[in-house]
């Protein structure tokens, strides 16, 4: 029976120490050349980079025509991106058809917005409540009158003239600040025990989520005027805002619902047993926990909204992308092989910076609020 058991009587020889576990070479061995397949992938990857990076570098910087260049340089056979075109049309890309002598007004709006919004994002800055009230209630009114004019001797400026980055930012900021509360209300309505309210909320959310934004905007642009009493016209910017806000709030509602469902029943019951009313319970107990769970989803909806603002050309607004496209198609004095490409790349970079910034900020916030769930 002993032949089934094996007992080693002498020690195994000690293995040699690992060759190197730190330093550049060890890192490369672990991350680049761990197996033959890895080595092959690394070589292919480097070849790919060598194939892709130099042309990109040359297009963007190497052979590009700087901001002070001329159109003749852009038209040369070897020229890369035509940054001169961007710098000469920059005003149009930012303000659209807004009268040039009045550009100080949007500038003040931009500056005020940055001044109020950036402290709001930084957790350490005090006076959050005052700041939020200023940003959410005072700032929109001031900005509207500053931009539209017609009061205090400011020249009236119809919204048809607004354009470029200004419109992109207005639609996304207004859309974000409005769709968030509407989304929360819709999500709460969807959880409600009252059948009429529940059905309404589910119907709205599912209907809006089922159709593409482009058809919602078509509807806002063509059917909204039909729905209004005769003789009443709705501003184009307002149509875009209504469309984008309603669309995003349906998505926001689903995100918030995910958070609400993650809250254990005990929290609702604990709130009720403290004698809190429905809204108090939601405001003090449920929503703070629920929203914390779904920050990534909320920010993803914001990013989607920011990208979706590029669709408002359907209602006839000239947002950043539409402004760039207009100039690409009509600025004959800048026509060259790379003009359109440069324009789109510029717009892409602007959109990218905003969206990437938002996603990084959400990661930062998530880490900061991740108290008590850390493992």
């Amino acid at each position, binding site marked *: 029976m002993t032949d089934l058991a094996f007992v080693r009587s002498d020690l195994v020889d000690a293995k040699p120490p690992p060759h190197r576990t730190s330093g550049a070479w060890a890192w490369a061995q*672990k*991350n*680049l050349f*761990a197996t033959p397949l*890895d080595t092959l*992938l*690394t070589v292919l*990857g*480097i070849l*790919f*980079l060598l194939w892709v990076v130099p042309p990109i570098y040359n297009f963007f910087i190497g052979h590009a025509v700087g901001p002070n260049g001329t159109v003749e340089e852009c038209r040369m056979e070897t020229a890369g991106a035509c940054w001169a075109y961007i710098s000469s049309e920059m005003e149009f890309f930012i303000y659209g058809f807004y009268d040039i002598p009045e550009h100080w007004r949007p500038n003040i709006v931009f500056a005020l917005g940055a001044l109020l919004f950036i402290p709001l994002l930084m957790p350490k800055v005090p006076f959050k409540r005052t700041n939020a009230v200023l940003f959410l209630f005072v700032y929109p009114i001031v900005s509207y009158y500053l931009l539209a004019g017609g009061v205090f001797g400011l020249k009236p400026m119809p919204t048809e003239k607004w354009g470029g980055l200004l419109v992109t930012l207005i639609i996304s900021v207004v859309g974000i600040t409005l769709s968030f509360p509407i989304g929360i209300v819709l999500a709460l309505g969807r959880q409600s*025990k*009252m*059948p*009429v*309210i529940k059905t*309404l909320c589910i119907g709205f959310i*599912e*209907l809006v*989520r*089922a*159709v*593409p934004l*482009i*058809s919602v905007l*078509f*509807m806002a642009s*063509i*059917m909204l*005027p*039909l*729905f*209004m*009493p*005769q003789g009443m016209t709705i501003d184009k910017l307002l149509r875009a805002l209504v469309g984008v806000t309603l669309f995003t709030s349906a998505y926001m509602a689903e995100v918030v619902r995910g958070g609400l469902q993650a809250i254990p029943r005990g929290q609702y019951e604990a709130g009720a047993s403290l004698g809190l009313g429905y809204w108090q319970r939601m405001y003090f107990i449920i929503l703070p926990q629920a929203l914390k769970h779904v920050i990534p989803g909320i920010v993803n909806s914001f*990013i989607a909204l920011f*990208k*979706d603002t*590029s*669709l408002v*050309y359907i209602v006839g607004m000239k947002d950043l*992308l539409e402004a760039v*496209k207009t100039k*690409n198609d009509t600025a004959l004095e800048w026509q060259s*092989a790379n003009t*359109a*490409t440069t324009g*789109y*790349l510029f*717009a*892409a970079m602007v*959109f*990218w910076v905003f*969206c*990437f910034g938002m*996603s990084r900020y959400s990661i930062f916030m998530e880490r900061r609020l991740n108290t008590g769930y850390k493992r």
Partner: protein
Amino acid sequence: MTTLDTGPAAAPRVSFFNDPVIRGIIYQVVVAGLLIAFIVWIVGNTAANLAAQNKTTGFDFLWKTAGFDISFSLFPWSRASFYWEAFLVGITNTLLVAFIGIVLATMLGFTIGIARLSSNFIVSRLATVYVETIRNIPLLLQLFFWYFAVLKAMPSVRESILLPFDSFINQRGIFVPRPMPDEQFGFVWIGVALAILAIIALRFWAKKRLEATGRRFPVFLSSVALLIVLPGLVWFASGASVAFEPPVLERFNFKGGIQLPPEFVALLFGLSIYTASFIAETVRAGIQAVNKGQTEAAQSLGLKEGDRLRLVIVPQAMRVIIPPLTSQYLNLTKNSSLGAAIGYPELVNVFAGTALNQTGRAIECIALTMLVYLIFSLLTSVIMNWYNARVSLVER
């Protein structure tokens, strides 16, 4: 000493309005009333507006001749066709680009998603750069880029660029040879069908044998072999052949072959590349959601690397991946409506655009368009609910 009054407490005097049941009813009546008033107001306004513009309503226009051109359709279209045919052309064009886009985006997305988890530094960084760049740029902008900056900037027809396999690319799109199978080729399809039947039988048998003896049969490799060998044999035996009709440059344009219009190509590229970045993130999250202990447990059971992935990791990851993946497919289908911006004749472009402008029946056209997307969405969610019920964890 105080005594506690433990007798039956009198029912608390609650005011009429504080009774939750009554209050709930009041709220609902108020909301429903407001909604009905709102709808009545809107319907009244619309009727008045339509009457003022001398417009009629109704779906009778669907049986009138459309009288406009559609640049790309899968079945014959002429100006004499009816509006309901235009509706069908729109739907099929949407489904065509969505279907091919889904296939391409899935392949690209899974590749990139797995690459992001690679232990190889360069591979994972390249995948990260791809995802973070593409995800943060609006789809419409990418479509404009592909359409206006890349495809429309191609050389003119006379200076077409020659691609491999007798294909050409120029301003008017991509021209590829058209396969012309002869009559014998039908037998090859029969061969394919036979191979598929054989594979199903083989799997069944292999599973039986595995359960009986514990010995594994290389099902996947033999399936691939069957799928190649059987139709191949039929091909040779029947003497079938496929001729390719290459596109030939004539005076003004290419003759023969298949023309893929630039709108279609740009939309397909844009949709696939954009959606792939989201699918990649879904795949990455799904694989990461599988606990590391599962890999270790599989190792300790003595499963080989391939079996570990196939039997333990992938089934669990798929449970996490499939629901968001389907919603990405649905997003791709909805996003195909952006083809309207670059002139691809899909549903929104044909029906909510051209047909609406021609007939002026705004409400009917938009309602029909939305109804189609609503049906897509409902079908997807029905299938999803069925799938979720099937794969969800059965907990004690």
